[in-house]
């Protein structure tokens, strides 16, 4: 019996584990969260997807994989490690009332009361609308959704949605009654407020701010999979450059579900889903074009702005550095407990540096865990 290991229990990993179990493989599914569901569902998997929880799957939650030596033996590995938010440093972004957009949503899903709180949602991408709609349903007062993308691009994207009626309906329902403002982004945050481009100062309890998503490529890289331009390279069957390792997800939910199933079923049965995946990939490309980051955001980060929150490294200390490696050695930027996972993508954007290669462990671990690192 083929032993398949799936890492990541979001839409992609759940679909992959289900498809693999359906095909008679012995499946183990690991995730570092307390419950399955990934970033979007966080333990509350919608009824129509609960069929993915095939009882034959061995599930382990609360397990973070940070080195190859931790992996149980398997014939096939499907990586479905998802995405995280991109944070761009601006003055005041380290204040406690400034959180990620998905970050604040995750905390509210984790039990933070938000009713009556004044929230500004800012940054870029379709996630802003989903977060604003969710927080409003939980009683928050959404003062504004500030989207950096220019109005003409958002208008063109919205016009294109008629080809996807379900998505148009979803967008209309999410956005109904929300103040959505393109061409606006946070210039600075001060205790209890945010100053927005084209809008001025808004007093708020929370600024929920993210500039899109970056793929969690650390584990695939650590296992030797080729990564280019922030994406894991895969063939049409979702196979990475390492023959027995597959990668799925990190796109929209539809695409992640399809990629997961293609990886889980394997080439023979997965091919039936290639056309549907191609449509989902095209839709994701339209999103990338509509919400591409404008060049003005490059001047958001002032010399005094802290770019590395772990080591409190200001942007001015980064200027003399040639690349990520020298920044790490000379300034300790990216050497703290987040291991560059917040400042790395920010500096890649600000300085145009490619991300540095990964060394185990990719997460800071307890000493006890380090002792059994074999690679």
């Amino acid at each position, binding site marked *: 019996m083929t032993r398949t290991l799936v890492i990541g229990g979001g839409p992609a990993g759940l679909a992959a584990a289900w498809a693999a179990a359906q095909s008679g493989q012995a499946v183990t599914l690991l995730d570092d969260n307390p419950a399955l569901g990934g*970033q979007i569902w966080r333990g509350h998997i919608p009824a129509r997807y609960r069929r993915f929880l095939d009882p034959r799957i061995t599930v382990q939650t*609360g397990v973070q994989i940070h080195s190859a030596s931790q992996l149980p033996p398997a014939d096939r590995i499907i990586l479905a490690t998802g995405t995280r938010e991109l*944070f761009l440093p601006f003055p005041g972004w380290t204040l406690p009332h400034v959180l990620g957009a998905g*970050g604040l949503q995750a905390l509210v899903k984790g*039990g933070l009361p938000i009713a009556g709180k004044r929230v500004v949602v800012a940054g870029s991408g379709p996630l802003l609308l989903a977060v604003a709609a969710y927080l409003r349903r939980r009683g928050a007062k959404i003062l504004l959704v500030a989207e950096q993308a220019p109005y003409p691009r958002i208008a063109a994207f919205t016009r294109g949605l008629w080809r996807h009626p379900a998505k148009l309906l979803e967008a209309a329902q999410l956005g109904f009654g929300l103040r959505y403002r393109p061409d606006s982004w946070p210039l600075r945050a001060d205790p209890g407020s945010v100053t927005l481009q084209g809008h001025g100062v808004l007093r708020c309890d929370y600024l929920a701010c993210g500039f899109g998503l970056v793929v969690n490529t650390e584990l695939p890289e650590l296992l030797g999979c080729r990564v280019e331009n922030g994406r894991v390279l895969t063939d049409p069957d979702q196979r990475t450059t390492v023959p027995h390792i597959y990668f799925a997800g990190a796109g929209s939910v539809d695409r992640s579900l399809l990629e997961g199933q293609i990886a889980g079923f394997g080439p023979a049965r997965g091919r039936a889903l290639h056309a549907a995946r191609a449509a989902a990939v095209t839709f994701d490309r339209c999103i990338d074009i509509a919400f591409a980051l404008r060049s003005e955001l490059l001047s958001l980060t002032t010399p005094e702005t802290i770019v590395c929150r772990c080591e409190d490294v200001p942007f001015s200390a980064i200027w003399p550095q040639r690349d990520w490696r020298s920044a790490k050695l000379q300034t300790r930027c990216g050497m703290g407990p987040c291991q560059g996972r917040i400042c790395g993508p920010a500096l890649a954007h600000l300085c145009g540096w490619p991300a540095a290669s990964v060394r185990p462990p990719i997460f800071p671990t307890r000493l006890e865990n380090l002792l059994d690192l074999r690679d």
Partner: protein
Amino acid sequence: MISLTVNGQPLTVPPGTTVAAAVMRIQPAFRRSVTGESRGPLCGMGICMECRVTLNGHPHERSCQLLCAAGMEITTP
């Protein structure tokens, strides 16, 4: 409901509440940065490490990835 304490202050939260959400009910700040700034959660998903607290005497626990349990003692600087 689950009873726990944050810096000695008693608190009850519904089951399924994360430690980070419990602390935020009481205060916005979780830790001091290396230069002494007050910091709180950023990512909510276990990546930024800004939500670290001392939990039952263990320092540097990522509070956004942990669920509250009865009798937990959480402290922040």
